[in-house]
């Protein structure tokens, strides 16, 4: 019923071209008009190829509601193996919501309701028999703010392998910890102080520690939610190099507000706007020759 009112709302808005106030058939609140008008401007269908070769994650018709708010609308998107996909868009457009659906971190938000088909290697992420602990072991996550555990550096990295029983003895666990720290490019800086608290490291080191902690569980996909937003340019550059290396082995979905970062690290880029996926394509195409007007406005810095 509400949807029909909205349709009438934009029908009325589209007609007058002479600047007169549109006359709506039914009274519609200004908020709804703005929202509906904006939504209308965005094509319902995503521009570009949403599929990926050898997809590890496959989302069709993904919707998320936070209570009354419709945060994510009909998202179709694949993430390929050994691919880095950057998710860009203005604040509140649903990019973080999208990646949090992929390891069910939205389960912790009570009002969140997720519908649609989310698959990891063909297995339904939201199926009743999917174990969320197993899912999160396979889909790791790095958060916006570095959040090492208030424990030693060693314990931070060892925690995941230990709870999942990945190492059968101390030597194997040591190997996993050293290997993960090495791949996270942190081992040289911390190898002599593994028993010091992880929270005592600098911001960039903490974030690399969090990445080491994530890869210690040997996931298939790594989700990164603005991993560099709290870091200085030098620390950011190190993390970006790291993402480059990690992409040899993992599928990575990274949310970022920095378009330069998206351009530097990703193979594909997806542009989100007001809960819709507007355009997906190879990163160089999105930044040099976007097909959609909204994408162009955003990447050229006209808004956002």
């Amino acid at each position: 019923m509400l949807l029909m009112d909205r349709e009438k709302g934009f029908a009325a808005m589209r007609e007058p071209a002479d600047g007169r106030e549109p006359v709506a058939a039914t009274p519609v609140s200004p908020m709804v008009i703005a929202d509906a008008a904006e939504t209308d401007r965005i094509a319902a269908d995503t521009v570009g190829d949403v599929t990926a070769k050898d997809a590890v994650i496959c989302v069709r018709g993904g919707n998320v509601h936070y209570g009354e708010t419709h945060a994510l609308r009909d998202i179709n998107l694949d993430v390929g193996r050994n691919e880095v996909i950057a998710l860009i868009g203005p604040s509140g457009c649903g990019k973080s919501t999208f990646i949090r659906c992929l390891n069910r971190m939205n389960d912790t938000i009570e009002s969140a309701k997720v519908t649609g088909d989310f698959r990891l290697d063909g297995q339904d992420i939201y199926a009743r028999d999917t174990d969320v602990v197993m899912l999160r072991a396979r889909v790791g996550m790095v958060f916006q703010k570095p959040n090492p555990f208030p424990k030693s550096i060693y314990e931070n990295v060892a925690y995941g392998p230990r709870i999942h029983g990945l190492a059968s003895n101390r030597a194997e666990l040591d190997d996993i910890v050293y290997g993960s720290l090495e791949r996270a490019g942190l081992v040289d800086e911390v190898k002599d102080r593994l028993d010091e608290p992880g929270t005592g490291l600098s911001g960039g080191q903490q974030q690399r520690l969090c990445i080491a902690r994530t890869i210690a569980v040997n996931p298939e996909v790594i989700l990164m939610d603005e991993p560099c937003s709290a870091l200085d340019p030098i620390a950011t550059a190190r993390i970006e190099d790291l993402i480059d290396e990690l992409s040899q082995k993992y599928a990575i979905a990274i949310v970022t507000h920095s378009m330069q970062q998206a351009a530097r690290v990703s193979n594909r880029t997806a542009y989100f706007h007001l809960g819709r996926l507007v355009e997906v394509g190879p990163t160089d195409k999105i930044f040099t020759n976007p097909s959609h007007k909204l994408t162009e406005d955003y990447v050229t810095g006209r808004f956002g």
Partner: protein
Amino acid sequence: MAAPLTPAETRRRVDASLRRRYRTERLFRLYGLISVLLGVGFLVILFTTIIGNGYGAFRQSFVRLEIQFDPAVIDPDGTRTPDVLASADYSQLIKSSLRQLFPAAEDRASRRELNALVSSGGAYLLQKMVLADPGLLGQSRDLWLPADDEVDLFVKGSVPTGAAGSEQERLSAQQIGWISQLKAAGRLELRFNTTFFTAGDSREPELAGIWGATKGSFLMMLVTLFLAFPLGVAAAIYLEEFAPRSWLVDVIEVNINNLAAVPSIVFGLLGLAVFINFFGLPRSAPLVGGLVLTLMTLPVVIIASRAAIKSVPPSVREAALGVGASKMQMVFHHVLPLALPGMLTGAIIGMARALGESAPLLMIGMVAFIVEVPSGAMSPATALPVQIYLWADSPERAFVERTSAAIMVLLAFLLVMNAAAVWLRNRFEQRW
């Protein structure tokens, strides 16, 4: 729209408001300082009163007497069975010893006055010695026996030495004379009052001790700690982390908050009805006292624990869930260690309140006059605050200083308990 302010006008307006702002700040600081000083002042008055009244109780007058363990008095038939030894009249030994010291007291009245110098508890002391070592019979020993409470007060100078022999004076001129003779002979002196720290309650102030009540309180606190802390923390974790959001949980939450404000005597009534009348647990037992105090402390622990759990940053939870920890692992590996200091603080507050509580204990019979030091959680006992109440209510003047001394013991108990909790909290406190 009004014309923009000139820079000079802006400065003038800011300047005017600045002075007002500084004035309110100065006033506020003054109020704060006054309140702090008032608080400190009352604390100083409280402590000087208590310590000034109570320190005397830590010392007690003793009389040195040559006691002849005369077999003719203790065991005239020579049976030497414990029954006979226990029922003998040991006060006779003290009386004869005193008579030897002051042979001048011949009539009944002055003999009675003479005998009143030494505590009636002296006889128990001798009885205990003989029961422990029957070989004492026939020997003589030089012993320090506790003086009577009135003598003790006189020696400590707590009694106004106005008109000797007047109505207010509890000691006769003759007795005062004997006291000075004993003092001069080195047979009367103030010594450390071990009885006060080792004995249970007594009708005689010089025999009354705080140890029975301290042990009763200690046992109760033990019961309370081992029930209220785990139960409270478990309830808080369940409500905060696992319980589904529903109206039922809201109702429980409101009720817990209300329970924290329920007058403590109501918990005493509840304990009487449930633990004693329904479950048939013994009256006056520290176990029942501990259970009642647990009921009283639980809401405080739950509320503080929930607040502590809530204050754990969500980033730590996300980090744990992000690497695939189950909810249980997240709570026990990450949330609980970080929340523990806050939970301990809640437990300290709850336990401190429980320690000082007397009203609910009155309802479950812990106000009874109990001489024995409790041997366990099921034996009859009393608690420190109840003991203070009982002594404050006693007519003997010597209980005045013992009341204050008992308050000092209670405060010391509280300090030790809190210090232990603070030490624990600092051990568990972690930065994040």
